[in-house]
C-alpha cells in the first residue's frame, strides 16, 4: 500500500537498464500483482456476456449444443457406447477440459493485442493478461461442469438406462487433471499471445489450429483406437493426457493409462516453461512492437 511504502524508508530502488540475454523469469512480480490478475479475470467474465440477450446462459448453451452435434455425427463412428458409457457422456467428459483449453487459447492468444492501449501506456507485469484470460475460462468450465452433473443424473435415473455413475477414489485425482489442463492451456497460450504481438498471423492461424487440435485429441473417439506404436507420439499432445485422465477419473471404465498421462504431463510442463521463457524475452519489446 502506498502509505505504508511511504513511511518505509528508504524505498526500494529500481534499476532500469537494457537487458541482454535470457530474461529472468521473475515470477514474484506476478505474485505482487495477483490482485490485478483477479481483476482482469473478473473484467473478462463481466464483459463477456454484457449486452447479450441470453447472458450467462451462453456458457451452458455452447457446450451442450456441441455435445448434441457430436453425438449426432460421431456416435456411429465410435460405436454407440464406447467403453460401455453412453456416447453423450463419453463425449462430454472430454469436452469439459477441451472447452477450457480452446476457449482460453483463443482468448489468451489475442489478449495482449486487445489490451494494447494499456500495454503501451502503463507498466504492470504483462503475464497478468494471458494468465487472467486462462483463469476466466475456468468460470465457463465450472458452468459446463454443472451441466455435466445434470447429464449424469439424467442417464443414471432415466428408465431403461444401464448407466450408473461410479463414485470411486479415482474422482479424487480429478483436480490433478484439471491442474494439468491449466498447465497445458497456459503454456500454449503464452506462446501464442507473445507471438501474436509480433506476428498478427497468429490471429488467423488460431481458429483452424484449434480445429486440427480438436481432432488429434481423443474427444470424439477414444485414444485406444490409435495404434499402439503411435501412442507415445500421440501423447505428446498434452490434451491427450488431460482428456484420458478426465475419462479415467470420471467414467472409471478402464485402467489408468499412466504412461500416456506421464508423457502428456511432461509435454505440458515443457510447453509451460518454454512458454514462460519465450514470453519473458518477448515482453521487453511488447510496448514497442505491439
Amino acid at each position, binding site marked *: 500500500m502506498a502509505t505504508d511504502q511511504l513511511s518505509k*524508508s528508504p524505498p526500494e530502488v*529500481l534499476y532500469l*537498464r*537494457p537487458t541482454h540475454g535470457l530474461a529472468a523469469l521473475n515470477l514474484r512480480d506476478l505474485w505482487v500483482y495477483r490482485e*490485478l490478475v483477479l481483476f482482469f479475470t473478473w473484467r473478462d467474465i463481466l*464483459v463477456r456476456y*454484457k449486452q447479450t440477450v441470453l447472458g450467462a446462459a451462453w456458457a451452458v448453451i455452447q457446450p451442450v449444443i456441441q455435445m448434441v452435434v457430436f453425438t449426432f455425427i460421431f456416435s456411429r463412428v465410435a460405436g454407440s457406447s464406447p467403453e460401455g458409457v453412453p456416447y453423450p457422456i463419453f463425449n462430454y467428459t472430454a469436452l469439459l477440459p477441451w472447452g477450457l483449453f480452446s476457449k482460453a487459447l483463443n482468448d489468451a492468444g489475442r489478449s495482449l493485442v486487445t489490451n494494447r492501449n*494499456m500495454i*503501451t501506456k502503463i*507498466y504492470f507485469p504483462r503475464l497478468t493478461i494471458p494468465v487472467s484470460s486462462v483463469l476466466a475460462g475456468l468460470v465457463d468450465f465450472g458452468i459446463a461442469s454443472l451441466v455435466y452433473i445434470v447429464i449424469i443424473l439424467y442417464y443414471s435415473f432415466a428408465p431403461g438406462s444401464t448407466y450408473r455413475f461410479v463414485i470411486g477414489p479415482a474422482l479424487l485425482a480429478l483436480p490433478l487433471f484439471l491442474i494439468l489442463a491449466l498447465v497445458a492451456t497456459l503454456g500454449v497460450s503464452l506462446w501464442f499471445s507473445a507471438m501474436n504481438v509480433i506476428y498478427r498471423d497468429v490471429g488467423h492461424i488460431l481458429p483452424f489450429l484449434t480445429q486440427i487440435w480438436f481432432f488429434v485429441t481423443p474427444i470424439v473417439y477414444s485414444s485406444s483406437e490409435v495404434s499402439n506404436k503411435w501412442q507415445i507420439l500421440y501423447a505428446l499432445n498434452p490434451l491427450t493426457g488431460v482428456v484420458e485422465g478426465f475419462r479415467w477419473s470420471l467414467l472409471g471404465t478402464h485402467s489408468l493409462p499412466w504412461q500416456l498421462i506421464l508423457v502428456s504431463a511432461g509435454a505440458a510442463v515443457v510447453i509451460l516453461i518454454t512458454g514462460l521463457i519465450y514470453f519473458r524475452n518477448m515482453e521487453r519489446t511488447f510496448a514497442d512492437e505491439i
Partner: protein
Amino acid sequence: MNDIAVRVEDLGKRYRIGTAPERYKTLRDTIIAGARAPIERLRRGSSGMKKAAGTDLIWALRNITFEVPRGKVFGIVGRNGAGKSTLLKILSRVTEPTEGSAEIHGRVGSLLEVGTGFHPELTGRENIYLNGAILGMKRLEIERKFDEIVAFSEVEQFIDTPVKRYSSGMYLRLAFAVAAHLEPEILVVDEVLAVGDAEFQRKCMGKMSDVAQAGRTVLFVSHNMSAVLRLTEETLVLDKGRLVYRAPTMQAVDFYMASGFTGAGERLWTPGEIPAEAAPFTPQALRLRDARGQVSETLRSTEPIHVEVEYHLSQAITGLRVGIYLLTMRGEYVFTSFDTDDLQQFEQMGIRQPGTYISRCIIPANTLNEGRYFLAVNASAFRVKRYFWDDHALAFTVDATGAPGKQWPEPRMGPMRPALDWKVERL
C-alpha cells in the same frame, strides 16, 4: 540515506522506424503493407530482433543524464517528437532503454493518458476498481479511497451506469479521479491537462500541487507553459532526443520559448521537421509582420498584424485549406481561421495547382490583449486528410502600449482586447 528520487545516466532509446505505432490510412496502403508485411516480418525475424539496417533506426532519446531530488516538482518541456514521452515511458517501465540506465527510488505512478484501461461496458464503479488495480493500487486501498474518488469525479449519480454512456467530460473526470488518488512516491504526468474544460483543468492542477506539497516527486510534461511555470521548480528542455538545457523553470521556459524558432517572428521548416505524410504539401515559412511590413516577434495590439504562410505543393490538392490557430500560452484556443473561409474564395480554390504559394491574412488592430501567443499551422482537406500540423509553429508577444484602457496599469482578463464603441448616456 540519499535523497535522490530519480537518477538517469546516459539514457538512450532507439526505435526501428515502422515499429512506432502507425495506422494504415487507406485501403490501398493497407493492401500494399499487407502484401509487403510477410517479407518484412521474415526479414526482421531472421535478424533476430536486433539491429536491422542502420537507416531504419532512429534515436528517440540519447545521452540523457540528470537527477531529480526527492520532493521536487520537475518539468520536462520540448516540442513534439523531442523525446519527452519516450523518457516518461522508460521511467514508468513501459519500455526498456536501449542504452544507459535509470534508478528509480520508490513507487512510480504514471498519469500518461487518462482513462487507459477503462472498459466501456463496465460501470463507473467497476471501472474505478479495475483502473485502480491496473495503476497498481490494492483492493483495500481502492475501497478506502472509493468515496473520495467518486466525490472528486462528480459522477455520483451515474456511478452504476456503464461508462460508454458517459459524456466525454464525465469519463475524463472519473479517469483522472482514479489516477489522482494513486499515492506514488514519484508521479509521472504527461499532458493530462490538454483535455477537459477550464474548471476540470483547474481541479487537476489543484490536485497536482497537493501531491507536490505532500513531499512527493513529480515529473511533469506539458505544452502548457503556464502550468509548468506554476507547478515546477526546475525544468529540463529536450530537443530531438537530447537534453539541451536544465535550469530553474523560469529560465528554462524562457530558453525553450526563445529556442527552436528559426528567427524572431519567423518560422522556417527544415526537411527533417516535415513528416512524410505531409506530401505533397511542404510548409516553408510562417511570418508575422507589423504594420510597416517588418518581420517582428513583438507586435503592437493597436496595429494590424500580418500573417503569412508560405508553402509548396508538388501536386495539385483538391479542397486544400491552409490556416492558422491562435493559442494563448496556457494552450487555450483564441481562434481558428482558414484561407478558404470566404465562400467565394472557397469556390475559386477548389483545386490548388502545384506551385509555391503564400496565404496571407491580417489580424485587425485592437484584437489581442497583451501577452505571449502561439501560432499553429494546419493544412488539410476537410474530412479527407490532414497534410500538415504544427501546434507550436511560432511564438510571439503582443504589446498593448496605447491600447484601450491602458490608462489603468492593470492586466486585463482574457486574450482579447477589443476597442469597443462605448456610449454613456445619462438618463
